[in-house]
């Protein structure tokens, strides 16, 4: 019978290949998988902590997992390393720590494609579960850029136009080289860019630093869900940069 394997971050390709070979099912614990208040995790992890890792704990409390692979090396973060201890104590199933330092580039066709940003990032995060090469997708001319990790709440992405190019760790994720700092630093100075980080994440320093150096950029952070002022900031920045934001979902 196939097992349910939880993954946190981007485990090494060899791990994904093994899971696929064994016919097991993968569930991405970084993304909300169940409907339950995130404060249910407060007994295990501080409220003032990366919301993605709080989501990992919330999912782990509810899902019938058989095994967890959690990446804790340079391709993820120290916060995940500490959460791996919490999971190991909390769960009755094996919690295996990995340190993904893969260097084989798979490319990032989705990052430069024309497609609603929410769908683009969903497909990128889903692609982590496969070891197969990416299908080719034609690139588009970018109107703006989104830099960062896939946010805890993808609603943040719905203001961006389809011609948004994706940078930062999300690009590393699609390239299957999550520890590639050089790729993570890549930006496009010719387009307006939004540098996103999760609140309480160490990457917020890099987001601010890169935004300060970029000629037309803002840095934003967001905890569990984007506040109306965060959304308004993105919308105004895009509008004032001559990019037409997608206002269909504006509150």
């Amino acid at each position, binding site marked *: 019978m196939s097992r349910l394997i939880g993954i946190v971050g981007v485990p090494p390709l060899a791990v994904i290949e093994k899971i696929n070979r064994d016919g097991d099912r993968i569930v991405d614990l970084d993304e909300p998988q169940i409907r339950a208040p995130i404060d249910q995790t407060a007994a295990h992890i501080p409220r003032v902590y990366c919301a993605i890792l709080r989501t990992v704990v919330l999912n782990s409390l509810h899902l019938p997992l058989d095994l967890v692979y959690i990446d804790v090396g340079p391709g993820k973060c120290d916060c995940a390393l500490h959460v791996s201890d919490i999971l190991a104590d909390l769960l009755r199933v094996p919690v295996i720590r990995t340190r993904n330092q893969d260097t084989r580039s798979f490319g990032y066709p989705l990052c430069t494609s024309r497609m609603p940003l929410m769908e683009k990032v969903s497909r990128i995060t889903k692609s982590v579960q496969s070891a197969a090469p990416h299908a080719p997708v034609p690139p588009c001319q970018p109107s703006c850029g989104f830099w960062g990790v896939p946010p805890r709440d993808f609603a943040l992405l719905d203001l961006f136009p389809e011609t948004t190019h994706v940078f930062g760790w999300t690009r590393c994720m699609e390239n299957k080289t999550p520890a590639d700092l050089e790729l993570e630093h890549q930006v496009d100075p010719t387009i307006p860019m939004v540098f996103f980080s999760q609140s309480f994440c160490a990457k917020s320093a890099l987001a601010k630093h890169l935004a300060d150096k970029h000629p037309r950029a803002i840095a934003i952070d967001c905890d569990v869900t984007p506040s109306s002022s965060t959304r308004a900031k993105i*919308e105004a920045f895009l509008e004032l940069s001559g990019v037409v934001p997608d206002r269909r979902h504006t509150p």
Partner: protein
Amino acid sequence: MLLADFGTSYSKILDTAKGDTPLILPTKELPRSFMADLATGHNAGRRSRRSINELTALARGGYALIQRPDFVLLDCGSRDIKFVRFQDGKVADMGWNAECGASMGFTIELLSTYYNLDYAEIPPPTTGFSVTCGVLGMSHIFDAIIAGASEAEAVAGFVRGIALNAYRFAHEPEELYLSGGLCSNPLFVACLPGRVHTLGRFVLLAGLQATLAQDAHPDSLLPGQTKS
């Protein structure tokens, strides 16, 4: 054409057919059925046929009024603080603080009524409290009064803390344009470091007018727009 800037405490309304003088009225006195043609601010989406967000209105209004390629404009309202920074005629940075900057303007107004103070008569203090939000800062006032400060001194320390907090939020520019209700508070303005130019309460309305002007002449450029 009815333009409206719906503030949390006050709404600023301009009927372009009737001249250039906007009407200010408490938002709670606005008829429920009131509907603007173009608006910004609190609930603008529901109370107007078309709305733009407050940062966009602030940037467009500031650019139209200041007419300089480089400036920092800070807007201090009842509920939140916002800033935009222009460089070479383009928006280079912006911020909106509705959480930690919450209710600063509203609290300052409440305090003057509660303690019966006239801010024009209170000199700016040389020291103050470290205040991050209106609500949390109140306890500093009570502590200072218990420690022997006069009510005016304690409130002045609070206002200074709020002014410094807002100034830091705008990244501490040497020269600052200020808009919003707190422009008419002499103590608050005097507590802001650097050179300060007050623009008053109608900058967001000016942003709506700039949007209308652009609609009428699509070839003219709003900030950030480039001819393609």
